[in-house]
């Protein structure tokens, strides 16, 4: 049922992104395989969010080629783009909930736009998504400004999952959450990956997340992927930044 693990769902080839004179991504190659949770790490300002936004198509690239679900988004027409966008969900760093809509309307918005279903089913699906992300249905009629930071993240994830996408982009999903909340979130991502067969592209700084949730880790540095592989590969690596990152004081605390 699930396609071969070797089939990449995202294919990034030789991508260069430049802002003014600073080159952020420099001939970067990356594959994300179907059904995996890829943790994406790197020093602050290395361009992790830029790569995410480039793949989604929010940041124009100077050169290179990106395919998502085997579709080159630059070459695709409007309908083709929409068909791809319908199959992915994005969780932005700050949630990016629509501030003038309630939680209910936020989650129902993409469903309402793409599918012609009854209000009853919309409501039921909305509640199902809220339950999935670990929220109580009674937050449905609150506005985003009335939610806590962790709840905003969860609602934003529920919205990203509203159409049951095959691929989700999570930009620092656990930043700003308490450790227990962050742990729950990792657990949640894993559960969703198992139940929905999701592919997850997760930008994170959280060593716990990398350790518990991710199947594979890719490290960004100097505009390129400097390493990609399992947690064991990362720990075995001799690269100075990796050594510092995975053998630092905090890493030792996580790994016990």
């Amino acid at each position, binding site marked *: 049922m699930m396609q071969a693990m070797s089939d990449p769902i995202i294919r990034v080839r030789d991508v260069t992104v430049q802002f003014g004179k600073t080159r952020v991504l420099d001939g970067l190659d990356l594959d994300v395989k179907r059904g995996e949770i890829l943790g994406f790490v790197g020093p602050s300002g290395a361009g992790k969010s830029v790569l995410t936004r480039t793949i989604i198509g929010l940041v124009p690239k100077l050169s290179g080629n990106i395919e998502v679900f085997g579709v080159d988004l630059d070459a695709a027409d409007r309908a083709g783009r929409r068909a791809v966008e319908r199959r992915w969900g994005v969780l932005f760093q700050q949630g990016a909930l629509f501030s003038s809509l309630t939680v209910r309307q936020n989650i129902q918005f993409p469903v309402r736009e793409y599918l012609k279903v009854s209000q009853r*089913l919309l409501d*039921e699906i909305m509640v*199902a998504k809220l339950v999935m992300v670990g929220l109580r249905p009674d937050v449905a009629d609150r506005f985003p400004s009335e939610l806590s930071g962790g709840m905003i993240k969860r609602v934003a994830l529920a919205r990203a999952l509203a159409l049951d996408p095959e691929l989700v982009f999570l930009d620092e999903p656990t930043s700003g959450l308490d450790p227990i909340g962050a742990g729950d979130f990792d657990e949640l991502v894993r559960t969703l990956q198992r139940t929905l067969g999701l592919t997850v592209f997760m930008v994170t700084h959280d060593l716990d997340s990398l350790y518990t949730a991710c199947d594979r880790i890719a490290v960004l540095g100097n505009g390129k992927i400097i390493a990609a592989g399992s947690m064991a590969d990362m720990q075995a690596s001799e690269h100075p930044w990796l050594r510092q990152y995975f053998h630092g004081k905090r890493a030792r605390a996580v790994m016990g």
Partner: protein
Amino acid sequence: MSAVPRMVVVKGGPDLQRSGEGSALSLRATGAWTAPFAPSLERLVADAEKLAGKKIDVSIDVSQVSKLDTFGAWLIERLRRSFTTGTAEARIDGLSANYASLVDEVRRVSVAPGGDATSVTITGMLSQIGRSVAGIFGTVAALIDMLGAVIVASGRVLIHPRGFRLTSTIHHLEQVCWRAVPIIVLITFLIGCIIAQQGIFHFRRFGADIFVVDMLGVLVLREIGVLLVAIMIAGRSGSAYTAELGSMKMREEIDALRTMGFDPIEVLILPRMLALIIALPILSFLGDIAALYGGGLVAWFYGGVDPEAFLLRLRDAISIDHFTVGLLKAPVMAAVIGIVACVEGLAVLGSAESLGRHTTSSVVKGIFFVIVMDGVFAIFFAAVGM
């Protein structure tokens, strides 16, 4: 309906087959039970649900489902629930291990009826009217409150001049005054031209062309100059103040200032108010000159009043009082615009919609109060004989 995706994959679409006799019913779900097929899935399930109550021994076979997601899992769960009544419970058969956890997940969902329904009632409408009326007093109270806070803050700054934000004031002065000069001069120039043209056109019938100078002088210096500039500034700078303060409020920047021991009124509002109060008389002065200049040009080319005669007549017709009256009004109007803009800015709540609403009402209320103040001034100056 461009929003509905094309149904490309017709083959493999979902179906729900019924079989069984008497009180027994077995439903067999096939195909892809996923989001893109949600509309047809919903119809299938709704059709099957009509049998609820008639059948007691119900089983739902999902072994032939090729793909399942939350939509499909929920609809199967909904089907199961509608056939589960008191004594009888519907069974789900053939669930693969892959999807079992998803079905378990949706089993936890309990749906409460939506709270979206808001009905229009007479009492609701009456209470809405009442709330709006009470809101007027609230608005006035908020304005007076802000006026008081600004006065207190400026008193504090007078006692401790080091608390005064010169850089910020100069920055706002540049935004509000310097950058507004071109548009203000252009608009008042055009209005001066139009007033002179209309005056000449109508006065000519009585052979009273020259009186256009009197009209232009009094109108521009006393009323139009300052009023026009105040309205322009309410639209241009009042809205900017509200939007700036409002977005700072949304991002908790104002709370951050407060926790660092700064008074937002002193740091944010006082420099803005001061900049406006300095700017408006200057802009009014420039506007007066531009309008008179425009009027003079039209009088010359269109009405045949040469500049020398125009100036001579202007000197006779206009006393310094007219000019003073105009400029005296300017700082007061600036204060009104500034206070309205700041009150609205600080009243912004968390949403983008609220920011838009308060920016609109900042401009509308600003212009309204400017015109009210102008009326009050007209009465006042008539009483003191200026």
